């Protein structure tokens, strides 16, 4: 039974407490990621996402609990070839071609020389880089560099792939292409962890997501379930104002259930609206004399959940 569980979950984290020196960053964290599953690791800056990734890579001292990769507990400082890491930066040598980089990282991943050519070909195919294999990394566009970054991580066919902000700084077209690459990688059976600040990306790609708060993952679940559990039938009203609000205007918005967004010019509220209630909301705003640039009514998403949780955490 236990073996079956290990086979199904390449990554198992149990009661993990880890950190740097006396500082505890991860506190009793639990997580299992199954084969072919994409898990979105979400959280604000400094919440411990990078620490968790580093801990899975065996780089951070585990105080209590354990991390199992393919059924084997990891030890700090020991390599675990089960992991393929796709860092946020382009962790490749810019003056080398894609193929040369793959050959190097193939060797460093422990692949035999005879295996490198076929592994490189497979990685190039999986990332759609076969036509650009002999181009130097520095000559590639942002999107292709990201693809090469992924190719170098999957050469040795890891059972766990860690993506750290894989689409930062790329345009929408390239982002969609990268989404396709990541989705296809799940077909290999690898467990995928994706850290991102792009909630739309998490919603589009992830089977499950977890919000890292105070050293633990709370809540964890399927994106649509988390949204449903939090907001129910409420809709989100987002208004963008042109000018800074007076105290009176601010008070009136707060009284109507709005909370200030990050920019200070954006306010949002989660309201149960019946048909034709949109006009009533608009009236409240206009009656307050607020110069509005835009009013949007939408279904809440992961970004709404993220903001709500961040708001709760800030009030703690």
């Amino acid at each position, binding site marked *: 039974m236990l073996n079956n569980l290990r086979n199904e979950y390449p990554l198992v984290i149990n009661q993990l407490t880890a950190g*740097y*020196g006396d500082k505890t960053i991860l506190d009793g964290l639990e997580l299992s990621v199954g084969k072919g599953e994409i898990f979105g690791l979400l959280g604000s800056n400094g919440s411990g996402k990078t620490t968790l990734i*580093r801990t899975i*890579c*065996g*780089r*951070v*001292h585990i105080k209590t609990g354990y991390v199992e990769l393919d059924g084997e507990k990891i030890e*700090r*400082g020991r*390599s*675990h*070839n089960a*992991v*393929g*890491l796709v*860092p*946020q*930066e*382009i*962790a*490749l*040598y810019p*003056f*080398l071609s894609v193929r*040369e980089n793959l*050959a*190097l*990282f193939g*060797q*460093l*991943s*422990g692949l035999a020389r005879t295996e490198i050519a076929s592994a490189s070909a497979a990685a190039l195919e999986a990332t759609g880089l076969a036509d650009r294999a002999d181009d130097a990394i520095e000559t590639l566009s942002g999107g292709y560099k990201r693809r090469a970054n992924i190719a*170098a*991580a999957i050469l040795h066919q890891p059972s766990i792939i860690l993506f750290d902000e894989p689409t930062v700084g790329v345009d929408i077209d390239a982002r969609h292409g990268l989404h396709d690459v990541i989705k296809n990688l799940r077909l290999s059976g690898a467990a995928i962890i994706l850290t991102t600040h792009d909630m739309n990306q998490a919603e589009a790609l992830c089977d499950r997501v977890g919000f890292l708060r105070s050293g633990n993952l709370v809540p964890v679940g399927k994106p649509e379930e988390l949204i449903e559990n939090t907001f129910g039938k409420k809709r989100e009203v987002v208004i963008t104002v042109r000018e800074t609000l007076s105290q009176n205007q601010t008070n009136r918005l707060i009284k109507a259930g709005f909370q200030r967004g990050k920019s200070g010019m954006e306010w949002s509220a989660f309201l149960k609206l019946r048909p034709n209630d949109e006009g009533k909301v608009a009236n409240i705003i206009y009656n307050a004399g607020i110069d509005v640039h835009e009013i949007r009514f939408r279904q809440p998403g992961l970004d709404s959940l993220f903001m709500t949780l961040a708001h709760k955490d800030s009030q703690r």
Partner: protein
Amino acid sequence: MILAVAKVMALQTVRDRGAIVLAFILPPLIFSIFATIFSGAGGSEANLDTTIVDLAKTPISERLVARIDEIDGITITEPETRTREFVSQLVKRGAVDNAIVILPPSSDDDSIPPIHILSNSSTQMTGSILNGHLQRLIQTEFPGVRMRRSAPVFEQLVGGLSTEQERSLEDNLSRLDNGDDQLGAGQDDGGNQGQLVTMELVDKEDDIDIVSYFAGAIAFMFLLFSSMQAAISLIEERHSSIIDRVAAGPGGVDVLVLGKFLFLTARGTCQVALIFLFAWIFYSVNIGGNFFSLVIVTIVAAMTASSLALFAASACTTRQQANAISSFVVLVFSAIGGSMIPRFLMPDWLQGVGWATPNAWIIEAYKEALFDGGSVLNSIGPLIPPLIAGIVALIAAIYLSRRRVYIS
């Protein structure tokens, strides 16, 4: 895996024209500038490490030796064997800067000056300084010696001296030798017949030793510079997360550090080989006399520079920090270690401080390796301190790199 990392470094160098210029063209160029300047240079203030052989053993010669010992800026080293041949070898090997040989008074040929200063080509300038000291000493404190040497010429010109005149002359010359300032002190003899001191090069057949000196000195300075620049890639790899990716593999970060060490050592060996090739072709430096020693010294020099550079890169957090620190350290090491100016031109205390730098030891090892007739063992002795420093630096570099990746 280590070879794979070394190969990447090699490709980086080959594909970066700036790096090629820095690594392979600049060192011979700078070396030739120094070689050209110093092969014909003179000097003034210097501490002269000198040995003396008094073959005359007369009261005057013994007093002369004692007075030379009192001159500021001259350090007398006692030779193990008091022969001209032995001290000549000391000078040739660079064990001392110069030697003074005082010939016996019974020398048949009066045209041979009684005091010989032996120098090698690299210490020729200090020989000149020593010559100046001796001339002044003889002129002010031993005028009788000089005049006694001119007496036979004078006697020949006047058609011979009577017994009384000879006695009077000898009395007065003795008074002069005993320091009677009223008699003839300060006068110049103005001709070769009265010349007491002569200079002699002990390595006349290949008078390019200063060039050999600078070949080793410049080579090591550039090894430090170029190794530091290349080792900074370790910081870039940290920032670009390459080190994270490598750390996740079976070799860990050790592979990255050791691969760089291997490449830097190989590249450094090639750089030095190029400098000596240049010195051999254009300055006739004898590199074949003790070739095996030269190879060993070069490999150890390259290993030491690589290790120190990797240690600096591992210790620094940013590229700017590494650039500033490495430039400062290399310049200071090179300046006081003798890579820019020969150490024998430095004051005693600075020469002492210089032994704290790898440059001084490596230059010493090259001096032994380039001395035709020296043994490999002679070169190995000065290599021990830099070799130990290199091993310690490499271990420290691996330890620091691990600490940056595996966080406590």
